[in-house]
């Protein structure tokens, strides 16, 4: 499902920058539905885990202060061509998604 997209860019400092765009409303729980007047429940990504060749290397912790359709990026110094980078996230409602890419 193309709702979590990953881009890998070679970094000038060596290693790679991994950028992840996740399609997610990141609702704060404070916004009201214009039609019903009811508060739209909080719905946001909590943790996003990055793994290099199957081993977890970093975890991003997100909250309602992160933008809708969050773009999260990290730098990996030890990545090299042929490596597999996986990102997987879980939200406060138990929903999850992941994406995987091979470093070119």
């Amino acid at each position, binding site marked *: 499902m*193309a*709702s979590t*997209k990953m*881009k890998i860019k070679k970094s000038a400092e060596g290693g790679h920058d991994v*950028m992840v*765009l996740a*399609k997610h*409303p990141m609702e704060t729980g404070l916004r009201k539905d*214009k039609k019903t007047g009811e508060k739209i429940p909080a719905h946001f990504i909590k943790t996003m885990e990055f793994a290099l060749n199957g081993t977890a290397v970093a975890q991003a912790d997100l909250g309602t202060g992160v933008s*809708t*359709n969050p*773009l999260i990026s990290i730098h990996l110094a030890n990545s090299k061509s042929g490596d597999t980078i996986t990102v997987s996230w879980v939200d406060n409602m138990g929903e999850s998604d992941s994406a995987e890419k091979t470093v070119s």
Partner: protein
Amino acid sequence: MKRLLMLSLAAGIAMTGASAVQAISEAEISKDIEEFQGFFLKRFPGLTLDDFQDGVNALPQYAARRANWEINMDFPQYEPEMDKAATEWSAPFANGKSLADCDLAPGNTYPVFDAASGDLRTIEGDINACLKANGEEVIKNVKRGKMARLVAHYKSQFNGERMAVDYSDPGAQDWYAKGRQIYWAKRGQLNFSCADCHVHNSGNSVRGDVLSAGLGHGVGFPVWRTKWQVAGKPWGTIHRRYGGCTSQVRAHPFKAQGEEYKALEFYESVMNTGIPLKVPSLRQ
């Protein structure tokens, strides 16, 4: 510029109806383009015609916020939606065909005057006409969501192509005349015309915002607008934006894909002659 100011006066006075719109020649339209573009190139020295494809982001007064926009454009939020639109474009109808089989004109030539019907074709209209012709349900909301991303998908295939709307037919010239009048006529409780903000005050501020130049309007559309995204409906076509702007001068907005906004879109698109397409885009 004097001629454009005269137009402003004339359009303001001639509010009595369509019959007040005078016949315009192809030569006059060419001269309008030259004057309009010349005005903005003079007002913003250092900008080339191509720069205006970025909309308000092209203006020096917007430089600080442009830096923010550029970072976001590196990996825009609408990418997953654009992937979705690409899939929808080739998804088969019940009869086996798909939107990819529709007979559409090149993206940089819209709106297109149809001599047979006397009507103006927009991409939105053509998509719905094609759906109808193939026995599929038309898209009801022509300003947002699915329609906007489909238009963005189609138009993006022509990115880099320069705007080239055909105004050689007298029927097209009538649409142009109507659109030009709408652009320069004052309306609403605030009694502003499009030109008041986007010509005479382009580059100036409206509270925290900067008024975009009229030159380049629509070249980046449909857009994914943060302000709309915060309310849950991020995509918008140019007619959606027109509606918002009309409401803002406290006038009743015209109908999306109705005659007025199609005429306005035609006028603005003709004024954009030569500017390369850059679709879609992010706006605040």
